[in-house]
């Protein structure tokens, strides 16, 4: 799995309340979720995301609430890859299980700046950034397959379709 995109950076401890405010929790439409992505960070969001597909962050990205819209709203807003120095357990799970690839790497996240183009090979654990090569801990195969399948529900849909085939 290879992903190439332009990076945009957030800071440390960006909570899931900031990524996706609680008042939109009952929104189930992904396009509508995308309109509120990162809205908690203040004016200008999520418009500032436009054109960027790699979201970088500091420590403890997505801390707090279990709301998966923190991952699905980013996905719907066009984010293809998240790279953070560290991220909360729930944010990481919600990303993987909804098909949004994540990389937890202090070294790689620290090297990102706004607007740089990065390409990452998730299966090999290698990223290229401005001529430099970075190695990161790749996700276990079973989790990479969930991401590749587009998340747990996409997988479930296929399983159910097979079961009900005449």
């Amino acid at each position, binding site marked *: 799995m290879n992903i190439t995109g332009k990076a945009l950076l957030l800071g440390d*401890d960006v*909570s899931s*309340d*900031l990524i996706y*405010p*609680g*008042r939109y*929790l*009952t929104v*189930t439409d992904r396009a509508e979720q995308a309109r509120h992505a990162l809205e*908690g960070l*203040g004016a200008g969001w999520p418009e500032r995301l436009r054109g960027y597909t790699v979201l970088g962050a500091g*420590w*403890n990205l997505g*801390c*707090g*609430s*279990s*709301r*998966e819209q923190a*991952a*699905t709203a980013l996905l719907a807003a066009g984010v293809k890859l998240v790279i953070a120095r*560290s991220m*909360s*357990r*729930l944010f*990481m*799970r*919600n990303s993987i*299980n*909804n098909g949004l690839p994540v990389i937890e790497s202090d070294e790689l996240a620290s090297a990102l700046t706004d607007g740089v183009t990065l390409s990452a090979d998730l299966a090999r654990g290698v990223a290229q950034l401005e001529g430099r090569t970075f190695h990161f801990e790749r996700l*276990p195969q*079973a*989790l990479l397959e*969930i991401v590749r399948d587009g*998340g*747990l*529900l996409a997988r*479930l*849909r296929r399983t*159910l*379709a097979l079961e*009900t085939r005449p």
Partner: protein
Amino acid sequence: MTTLAEKILSRAAGERVSAGQYVEVSPDWCFTVDDTIGLIMKYHEEVGLRRLAAPERLGIFYDHFAPADNRDHASDHSAGRAYARRHGITHFYEIGQGISHQVCVERGLVRPGQLVFNSDSHTTTLGAVACFGTGLGAAETAYVWATGRIWVRVPATIRVVLTGTLGPGVDAKDACLALLRTHGSRVATYRAIEFHGESAASLNMASRLTLCNMGVEMGAKAALFPADSVTAAYFGQLGIPIDMEAGRPESDAVYEREIRLDLGGIEPLAARPHAVDNIGSVQELEGTVIHQAFLGSCTNGRLQDLRAAAAILSGRHVAPGVRMIVTPASSQVLAAALREGLIEIFTAAGAVVTTPGCGACAGLHLGVLGDGEVCIASSSRNFRGRMGNPNAAVYLASPATVAASAVIGRITDPRSL
């Protein structure tokens, strides 16, 4: 040689597992709350699911916006009721029954040695009864409901050794804030916490629930008190037999690290805006003007917490310009508080008592803050926007500190009243 987390996950995986492994597990319970039921139903419809794997192991709790405050929330509630009926989900808890974590502990649904998921991050609370409780997202919950299983990473465990005794006017909440002050909000990311030490044994169930609840604010996947005499007495009074051994780590378990905390050295503390580990002593924050005082939540909405606040509010009145909101964690807490005369004390003091549930904590209803306002809350999160308004500020403190501050109108050390 397994920690309690490894022991519980080994049973749920059907094989012996250790920290760092990725395994598939079948939980004993998988719950959801009203803020997620809408997504779960939508996902099941989208994938064409007709039958749930094990409806008897599922539960639905209406607590985050209960009673419903707007049309969308009300529609989610009504669709969820129909869904529960259609699929035979009998563990269904209506508005006003209380917060999921409180209800499933006080009714003895969750027990030592069990693995429990809930689509709510504060599911770590259940560790107070030696149960591995942890949060899931909506898609994950929908998947577990459909298949009965899901992957987990087995966490390494931090052993937290408690010594000493909490002083007068100092609460388990202050102990949580003390841990956050010293170790920060990232110390336990993707790890389990196990509480040990001579003083762990002296903490009652309410205090344990508070400590385990705040485990997630340190990033923990689960926070557990191994089963002991307090656990046995708790289930004994509920008339529920338990397997004590299933709720204990093995004697030579391997821990990633050890953290020590002297409960005797703790003073009343508060988390300043807008981070749970931005800690100051209540004394140094004294004088900070507040507009709202919130007593409630799965962190501190239990009878013990209402008693601590009532002891301060008795014979006193909430300061002019301040409103105080009391939200019992469950209907059982409300009933007990009524019997003890606590509700009368609150109303006489000028506080308002609301329907049991999550209340103002999640910023959805029952106490959203106005622009520029300051709230002191007994809940567990003060991220910007948490209580519904990014232009407001939230301080987190113990029930006693919340009550004392409500009386004076400024942040106040409860020991000074």
